[in-house]
């Protein structure tokens, strides 16, 4: 008699667990759909022709006569290629200069000993609390006064330092045992060579993380480029898409706009799918955009 009861209790518990699991999966799938749907919709709309999009009062969920014309249009009717190239130049240059600035700084904090080190480092940390909005006004005036509006120099210079990345890298550099440094010194290696040959390779994961985070930030930057460029020849993709929206294909050509949106979104999504692990680990450690 007892034996039967135990089986029944077990079955009930099992059933409850299955129901619970199902609810969890349903809810998770629901959020997944909410996340994915805009991507699906932009892809779908981008391959509909202008005519068919505007005749569908109730939009179809599958394209009836897919066309790539919108993609051709977004490179010929509006200078999307130019925006793309500008963003690429901006992203590569900013990231490269940033690495050249922050790696030596992190090295000095982690490895070298000098008067005022602690004070300076505290000062650096305090700078992390300064919001961008507070300093952007003066930077705008500075860059305008230097006649650097509508130049890459003006776009790039204010965004090449990041106190937070210096801090992240310094913490990582500091974990490398001192013995390595002394061994290198005995062999007559210079500081700079030691930094390049030993520290940078050992800390490559962190450097890759910082690089990727900076690339994402650059690719999506909108506010500073908007302030500093009003010549479409220097627009980055964010400003480009805004320009396309307001003056581009004509307000109603939504499929062509969506093609431009797809073109702009693809590079980062591909980058993400390749470096998924590093990006997610990096953002968990040092991301913002909360």
């Amino acid at each position: 008699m007892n034996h039967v009861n135990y089986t029944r209790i077990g079955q009930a518990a099992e059933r409850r667990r299955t129901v619970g699991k199902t609810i969890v999966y349903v809810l998770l799938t629901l959020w997944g759909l909410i996340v994915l749907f805009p991507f699906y919709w932009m892809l779908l709309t981008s391959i509909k022709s202008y005519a068919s999009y505007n005749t569908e009062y109730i939009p179809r969920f599958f394209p009836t006569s897919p066309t790539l014309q919108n993609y051709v249009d977004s490179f010929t009717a509006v200078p999307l290629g130019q925006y793309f190239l500008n963003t690429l130049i901006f992203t590569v240059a900013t990231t490269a200069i940033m690495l050249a600035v922050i790696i030596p700084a992190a090295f000095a904090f982690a490895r070298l000993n000098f008067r005022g080190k602690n004070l300076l480092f505290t000062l650096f940390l305090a700078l992390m609390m300064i919001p961008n909005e507070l300093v952007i006004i003066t930077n705008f005036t500075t860059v305008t006064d230097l006649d650097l509006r509508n130049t890459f120099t003006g776009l790039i210079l204010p965004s090449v330092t990041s106190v937070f990345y210096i801090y992240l890298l310094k913490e990582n550099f500091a974990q490398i045992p001192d013995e390595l440094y002394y061994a290198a010194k005995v062999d007559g290696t210079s500081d700079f060579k030691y930094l390049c040959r030993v520290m940078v390779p050992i800390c490559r994961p962190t450097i890759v993380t910082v690089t990727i985070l900076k690339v994402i930030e650059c690719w999506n930057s909108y506010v500073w480029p908007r302030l500093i460029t009003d010549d479409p020849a220097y627009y980055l993709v964010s400003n480009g898409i805004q320009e396309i929206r307001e003056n581009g294909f004509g307000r109603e050509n939504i499929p062509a706009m969506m093609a431009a949106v797809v073109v702009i979104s693809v590079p980062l999504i591909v980058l993400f799918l390749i470096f998924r692990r590093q990006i997610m680990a990096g953002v968990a450690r040092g991301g913002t955009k909360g």
Partner: protein
Amino acid sequence: METRNRTAWLYLLPAILFLGVFMIYPLFDVLIYSFEEGYNSAAQTFFGVGGYNYAFVLHDPYFLQALKNTFILVLITVPLSTGLALLISVGLASIKRLRHLFQTVYFLPYVTNTLAVGLVFMILFKKTPYTDGLVNLILNLFGAGSVDWIDGPYWAKMFVLCFYTVWVVMPFKILVLTSALASVDQTYYNAARIDGSTRWRTFSHITLPMISPMLFYLVITGFIGAFKAYSDAVAIFGTNLNAAEMNTIVGYIYDMLYGDSGGFPSYASAAAIILFAIVLTITVINLLVSRRHVHY
């Protein structure tokens, strides 16, 4: 370590130079700007020192609108996104199959261009002569009437803005909470199970206290981030946010600085300092609250 001043400063020189020019100098400059009355950016002259810029900004209806919008946005999106992220992370922690797939999908909004994907949200909600938009059609399916979400009533627009903001900030929160949940020592759960603790009790007495530092970190960064909202609104309503009644404090600063209504760096500076004061106050309050409730 031997002390070598010159080398060290040489390594630090580029960073100090950039930070000095683009961060420390502006910090003082913005304060000075905000107290210079009647500053003319073309002639670089001003005719007085005082609090007029602050008074002007605080009485500007556009600023008050921006302030109201920002506060509503913050009060809705921060609790909502944090709560939702907690729910999803707990769900993720309880499953094994498909977990990585879900995590990857949930992270996608982080790597998308806010301006570009905002356009997609706009067309999903927008009512045009050709179509009412997908969201309205779904509403019609349930018997509700169409709403003009993008150019219509205030709360409809605010809803779209909040929805998009939550969509954008979720990846970071889910990621942080998922790693926080994963780092809770399994021993505590085993002990709770031996004691016959119910699921809810385990959650509220073990999980929640253990991840509370991360939860508060998210609340704090969430508040800071939401107070600085701007590009999300531009993405949906276009650059003329004042006309759409959807401006934010940061949007007001940039409008004052540049654009059709721009050329007033003094007003922009005053608004920026007011924003900074608000954010600082909220952060301090958050820290005080967390000291009382967070278990380390």
